[in-house]
């Protein structure tokens, strides 16, 4: 008899408890059953009047009505820095004796540099963030899509003093003028008429001075941060820079032939980012707003 009473009391307790529990969170249950239906605010909280132009939104977004407009994250001023981890995919780049591949090391290094630059307030994009190999032109196109851009290509060499870093700028020849007495081009003008347009293959030409200046500024910083690094940048015909319409520099760390290139590349990211940041700031101070010759 006592047992029967206990069972009945338990059953009654469950019966009473369930409706009470569900009544405490009606919106939640409605949301689960019909997420498309607009939710009514809880009776205990005063209704927040939505702006007249804004219709009530369905779904869980209205469950916690906004009490204040979220402040947008501050957009840092200054140029977009496009980081280009060289090579990728089937193009391994330089290979160390222990199997280290330049494509992997530069990708890790670029991620570290990006994080550090963003921490310092720069806007950074990368031409690749996985083991893909965009073409030279695709990489240049990513940079050329922005108006105010600085292109930094990251490399690791096969040779050179281990731990040293060198920056390079694109060096193109003067437009070719055949000699006047050349029998090959009799009567032809020395140079084509200027059209005012730059060919894609020579998009870097108007920015060569700026790139040289930026490379020198970066190299000054690198020389202070990486032992054995030279004081000056070098010019070279670098395939990955020639189509970039903006200041463009290649930075190469030596080398995959070192005893531990993984550690070297990982450790290089932070000082490399600092060098780039300081050089870019100095560059912007002397070249405000534009870099064309």
């Amino acid at each position: 008899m006592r047992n029967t009473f206990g069972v009945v009391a338990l059953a009654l307790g469950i019966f009473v408890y369930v409706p009470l529990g569900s009544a405490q969170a009606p919106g939640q249950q409605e949301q689960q059953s019909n997420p498309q239906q607009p939710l009514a605010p809880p009776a205990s909280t005063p209704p927040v009047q939505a702006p007249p132009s804004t219709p009530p939104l369905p779904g869980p977004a209205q469950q916690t009505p906004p009490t204040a407009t979220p402040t947008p994250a501050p957009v840092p001023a200054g140029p977009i820095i496009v980081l280009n981890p060289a090579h990728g995919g089937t193009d391994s780049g330089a290979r160390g004796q222990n199997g280290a591949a330049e494509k992997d090391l530069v990708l890790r290094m670029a991620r570290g540099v990006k994080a550090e630059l963003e921490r310092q307030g720069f806007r950074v994009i990368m031409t690749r963030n996985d083991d893909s190999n965009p073409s030279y032109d695709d990489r240049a196109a990513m940079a050329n899509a922005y108006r105010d851009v600085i292109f930094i290509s990251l490399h690791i060499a096969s040779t050179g003093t281990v731990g040293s870093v060198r920056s390079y700028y694109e060096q193109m020849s003067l437009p070719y003028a055949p000699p006047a007495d050349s029998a090959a081009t009799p009567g032809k003008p020395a140079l084509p008429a200027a059209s005012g347009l730059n060919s894609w293959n020579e998009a870097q030409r108007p920015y060569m001075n700026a790139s040289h200046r930026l490379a020198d500024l970066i190299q000054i910083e690198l020389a202070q941060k990486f032992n054995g690094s030279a004081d000056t940048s070098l010019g070279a015909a670098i395939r990955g820079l020639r189509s970039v319409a903006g200041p463009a520099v290649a930075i190469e760390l030596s080398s995959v032939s070192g005893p531990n290139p993984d550690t070297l590349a990982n450790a290089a990211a932070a000082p490399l980012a600092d060098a780039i940041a300081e050089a870019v700031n100095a560059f912007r101070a002397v070249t405000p707003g534009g870099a064309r010759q």
Partner: protein
Amino acid sequence: MTRNWKIFLAALLACVVIGLVSLKGLHRRMARLAKADVTEEEARHEVLAPPVSTPTDVSAKASIFWAGGPDSLAPVQIELPLSADAQERSRQLLQALIADPPTPDQRTLPADTEVLGFYILPDGTAIADFSDALSNETPSGILSERMAVNSIARTLESNVPGLRRLKILVHGQEVDTLAGNVDLTGFFDLNQAVPQPMSPALSVAPTSLPSATAPKAPTANTPPAKH
């Protein structure tokens, strides 16, 4: 000590002596084989690219640009039989550049590289055609590729007057890059005073060589400007 023991010890002693004698010979042979690695490479190069000789060859001093450090070139004066014909002379110089670096560390081009052809157009454009080894065996990297191209350009520039620009082909074809970085789709300036963009960041010239021995290349470490 029994007689058998004496015989055994004598035989053992004889074995040790024979071993010592043969060890010395073995050591000599290993040294010869180690040296043969280099000579094999040279021998292969000699077979594939025999020295160019022409009736007009005269022994003359030439400045060949090999590596002078980890990231620089330095001219080395060597005596070479050189043709009066600019085309043949250029081939001879490039073969010397490939085959005769003073030390392995000074090598800028792979030892297996062959000069397949060299042509000079009337306007002073030089076209150098190398075998696949140039692009396959040059270590990938801006530093090493730049040194390879510069050593070719500077050597030609210093010893063959009249050349104005250089085109590098690999096995008769234009290639995108030498080994992934340095652009070979254009031309490299030769014997042209390429104005270096002045950098306000530095008052010194961006590149310079300790060029006490550089005969006619004041910007010996400056890469040939590329079109």
